[in-house]
C-alpha cells in the first residue's frame, strides 16, 4: 500500500508522511496536512486495534469511524546504552493514574508528592493536592481528611486537573483509588479490612483510611 518507505528513525522537522495515511502519535506534529517528527528517535507505526469480529446488530446509527482506522505513527526517543540511565521525562496528564506519597494534611486538603505516573517513575518531583471533596464519591460533606490519609501513606490517585501554578489536582473517588500502603502508629505495615479501615496485624488496632480496592 505504502508508496514511499517510512524512515526508521527521525530528526525533528523530518517529513513522516501525509495526514491522510497516519494519525499523529507522540513525538510528531501536524503542519499543513503533513506529519513531521518533533523528536529525535525511532519511528514506530502502530496498527489500530481491530474490531473483534463483525458487529452483532446495528441498533443505532454511528458516524463512520474513518479517522480511527488509520495507523498511528509516533517517534520514540532511543534508549541507547549510554542513555539507559536517563529516561524520557513524562508529565502527569489529566486522566492518568499516579502513585504518590502524602506529605502533609490539613482539614481541607492533603498535599502529596507524585512519584509514579502510569508506568514510569518520574525524575522530578511534582506536587499534587487531594481536596476534601475529591476523596470519595459519596457522603462528600462528611469526609474528614485525617480519617482518609495520613502523612507517609502511598496513595493511588487520578489526575483531574493541571491545577494551579504548583499543584496538580488529584482525586480518589473511584473504588480502586485510595491508600494502597500505610504504616500504623506502632510502625507496622497495615492490611486492608474494609473500604475505610486498615488493621495493624501485630497490635490488632484499626485505623481509618480511604482504602483502595485491592487488585
Amino acid at each position: 500500500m505504502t508508496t514511499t518507505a517510512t524512515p526508521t528513525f527521525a530528526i525533528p522537522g523530518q517529513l513522516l508522511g501525509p495526514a491522510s495515511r497516519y494519525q499523529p502519535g507522540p513525538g510528531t506534529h501536524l503542519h499543513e496536512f503533513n506529519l513531521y517528527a518533533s523528536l529525535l528517535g525511532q519511528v514506530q507505526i502502530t496498527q489500530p486495534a481491530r474490531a473483534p469480529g463483525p458487529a452483532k446488530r446495528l441498533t443505532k446509527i454511528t458516524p463512520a469511524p474513518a479517522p480511527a482506522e488509520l495507523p498511528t505513527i509516533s517517534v520514540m526517543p532511543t534508549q541507547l546504552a549510554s542513555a539507559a540511565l536517563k529516561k524520557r521525562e513524562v508529565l502527569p496528564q489529566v486522566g492518568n493514574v499516579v502513585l504518590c506519597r502524602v506529605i502533609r494534611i490539613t482539614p481541607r486538603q492533603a498535599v502529596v508528592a507524585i512519584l509514579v505516573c502510569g508506568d514510569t517513575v518520574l525524575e522530578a518531583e511534582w506536587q499534587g493536592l487531594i481536596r476534601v471533596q475529591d476523596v470519595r464519591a459519596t457522603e462528600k460533606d462528611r469526609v474528614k481528611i485525617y480519617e482518609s490519609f495520613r502523612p507517609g501513606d502511598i496513595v493511588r490517585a487520578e489526575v483531574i486537573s493541571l491545577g494551579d501554578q504548583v499543584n496538580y489536582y488529584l482525586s480518589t473517588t473511584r473504588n480502586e483509588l485510595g491508600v494502597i500502603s500505610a504504616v500504623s502508629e506502632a510502625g507496622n505495615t497495615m492490611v486492608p479490612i474494609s473500604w475505610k479501615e486498615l488493621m495493624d496485624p501485630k497490635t490488632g488496632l484499626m485505623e481509618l483510611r480511604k482504602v483502595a480496592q485491592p487488585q
Partner: protein
Amino acid sequence: MSDRRRVNGPAGTTLPPVFDDAVFEKLDTRNGRSRPPNATRKLFLKTGVTPSASGSAYLEIESSAKPGVSGLKLSCSVHGPRSLPRSAPFSPHIVLSTHVKYAPFATKQRRGYLRDPSERDLGIHLEAALRGAIIADRWPKSGVDIIISIIEGDQDRETSKLQGDEVWDMMNALSGCITVAAAALADAGIDCVDTVAGGVAALVQDAGDGSTPSIVVDPIPSEHEQILAACCVAYLPTRDEVTNLWFRGDLPASDLELYTSIVEHGIQASKNANRVLIDCLSGTVG
C-alpha cells in the same frame, strides 16, 4: 556591580614586549580571508557530552589557518523539563530560560564571573530563536533551562584590544549558540518543529575606503579590513522560516536589495550549519 566575592585577575591581557626586530616585522600582517566568500568554516558537533544533564551538546568551529587565532568552542546543557519554582505563575506552556556565559578566559578582555549586559543580550536573542522552534504547549507547567558556556570566544589574540569591535564576535557566538542549543534540545527530547541553526553573513570592505564592499558568510573580524554590516539569522530549513534576525551596521536605507542579499547569505550559512546538525543527530540514532 562588580564582583567583589572572588579574586579576579587583571581585566585585559598583558602582552610581552615585542622589540623592533627583523624577525618580528612580518608579525602583524593581515593575511585576509583564506576561504571563498560563500564558504563557512568547518564545524564539529557532538551531543550527549554532559551525563548529568537531560540533554547536552558541544560545538567547535575551527580556527582560521593563522596561528594564535582561536576558534569558537561552546558547551550547552539542557536541564528539564522540570517543575517550575513555587513562586512562578501558572503557565500552560513550557517556560524557556536561556543563560549564555563567556568563560573568564574566553576572550581577550577577561570576563567576570557574573553575566554582563552583552551576555544577557545573547541569552535574549537565543531565547527568541528557540521559542519559534519549540512546541511549547507539549509541556505545560514546566520549565527548561538552557545553559551555554562559551569556552573559547573566536577572537584573534594578536590584535590589540582596540582593534575590531566586540559585537561582530558576538554575532558569530550567537549563531554557534543557536546551533548547539538545537542539538542539545533534540538530545533532551523536547518537542521541536524543526532543527534550528544559526548563520552569519557580513558586508565587508577589504581594500581601503573607496573599494566596493562584498558580502561574505561566516566572517572573522580579524580577516577583514572593515565590517560595514552583519546579520545573524536563526532559520528553520523545512519550514523555511526565520525565527530570529539580528542585523547591525551602517547601510544606506534606500538599498533594500543589499539588506535582503545579506539576510539570504545568512540563511545560506545557517543551512550549512544545519547539514552538520542533521548529520550529528542522525549519527546518534542511526
